[in-house]
């Protein structure tokens, strides 16, 4: 029986991804570093403000790690949570670990902290990019119930590489936000198939927005992150020029598509209805043989 990443808490994910008993938490709940803004609203605070951070080893290599806790306000980022993430990335520049591993699970800006949340998210994004400029490898993983949206959906794509599970969801504006703004005709947030075809792990993998797709097991995520630590993605002018070409082609080739299934058809899946049925291995084999053609 696999230990599901999707079902696990932030702490369980860290325990399962790092080497046994190697995790040392920074600002643990006992320190009681909580959000001042939630207190002002008489809302319950979390003693870790919804993110667990610390150091440890993965396959013997030293890493810094953070995991957002979806069960606390959907992983939304406030002032303290953002500062913990920024501090961890700053510490990485000092310590030069083999990687910083970010286990994302977030709806984005914590609206109860409005301006402070938005600024925090942009500071996290900048800290990820600064760490990468300083030669630090920053790896992300997405596979929790709340997905990764809002500013954290942008921040996640600032990492060197991302690992996702099929159940993981990645985007900017969540389906409910779009439905509220534009109506159910624009995006029916209760149509689970539609949501999955738009922001789900397989779709993101086929577009090239995540580099590894894994089964929903903490051990699968660990193995994928270990593999990603073996090489470093370049972060220089050539890399962004290359990405620019890829994103330009994406609009040219797929910009008229109305649905994920149309995109998959354009990418060579003659019968896209089969795609959701395939298990991760079968899917990856078929995706790779299509890419080779």
């Amino acid at each position, binding site marked *: 029986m696999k230990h599901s990443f999707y079902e696990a808490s932030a702490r369980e994910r860290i325990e399962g991804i790092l080497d046994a008993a190697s995790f040392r938490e*920074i*600002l643990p709940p006992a320190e009681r*570093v909580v959000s001042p*803004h939630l207190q*002002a609203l008489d809302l319950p605070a979390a003693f870790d403000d919804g993110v667990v*951070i610390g150091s440890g080893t993965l396959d013997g290599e030293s890493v810094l790690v953070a995991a957002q806790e979806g069960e606390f306000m959907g992983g939304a980022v406030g*002032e*303290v949570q953002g*500062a*913990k993430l*920024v*501090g*961890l990335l700053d*510490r990485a520049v*000092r310590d030069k670990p083999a990687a910083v591993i970010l286990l994302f699970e977030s709806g984005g800006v914590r*609206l109860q*902290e*409005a*301006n*402070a949340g*938005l*600024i925090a*998210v942009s*500071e996290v*994004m*900048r800290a990820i*990019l600064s760490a990468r*400029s300083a030669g630090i490898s920053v790896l992300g993983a997405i596979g929790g119930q709340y997905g990764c949206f*809002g*500013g954290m*959906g*942008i921040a*996640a*794509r*600032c990492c060197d590489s991302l690992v996702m599970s099929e159940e993981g969801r990645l*985007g*900017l*504006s969540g389906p409910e936000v*779009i439905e509220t*703004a*534009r109506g159910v005709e*624009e*995006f029916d947030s209760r149509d689970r198939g539609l949501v999955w075809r*738009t*922001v789900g792990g397989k779709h*993101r993998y086929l*577009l090239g927005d995540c580099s590894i797709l894994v089964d929903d097991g903490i051990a699968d995520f660990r193995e994928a992150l270990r593999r990603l630590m073996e090489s470093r993605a370049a*972060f220089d*002018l050539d890399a*962004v020029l290359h990405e*620019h070409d890829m*994103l*330009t082609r*994406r*609009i040219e080739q797929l*910009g008229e*598509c*109305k*649905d*994920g299934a149309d995109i998959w058809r354009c990418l060579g899946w003659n019968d896209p209805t089969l795609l959701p049925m395939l298990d991760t291995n079968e899917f990856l084999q078929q995706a790779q043989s299509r890419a080779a053609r």
Partner: protein
Amino acid sequence: MDWQTVTDALFPQGHDVTQAGDFVCGTGRCGEQAFAVIGTTNHAEVGVELALAMARAVLDVITQYPGRPVLFLIDTKGQRLRHRDELLGINSYMAHLGKCVEIARQRGHRVLGLIYDQALSGGFIPNAMMADLCAAMPEAEIRVMGLPAMARITRIAEERLRALSEVSPVFAPGAINFVRMGAVDALWDGTLPTHLLEMLHRADAVDRRSERGFERGGRALAQPVARRVAESA
């Protein structure tokens, strides 16, 4: 405020900034200094195409005018809220723009931002909020969302949010609150070329927003918490 008024005032030595749709781009001269101007207008909704156009403009400055400072001129009502943008991975386009800004910084470009009209949520995160320093016009409207929408989503009474926003910069929309919290360097209410050159002179690659927010009393915890973590054993 329209972008022509802003560019005319910013660049007494002339500019060739033009508008194409919601996208604004060109070169402005302020004294001896040339600036690459990249921006948005019409309260633009930033979708995949506009994010990509801004990224292209940043890459062109890096490759054609090494070292030239970049000035983002921002007027946006936020990211475009369409199914199509999500389908195409708009977050990747926004991240790409942020990466282009970081690479410009890596290669010695100073990157500045000026919010001259509106700035909402995802529309100014990958440009103005990635800049070395960002200023705003005094009448600029900067916010995550309006108080009525915030009240609805958070289920906190609007009157309560309104009362709190009287005493705290956290909830209230408005450029001055982003100054107090350190995300906006200053409001430009004097001679624009003087402000621009002065900010360019001070800009560097270090993100000091939490430090400013602490000094100005708008964010008490961001800087001390980040420092405790960064300096932890």
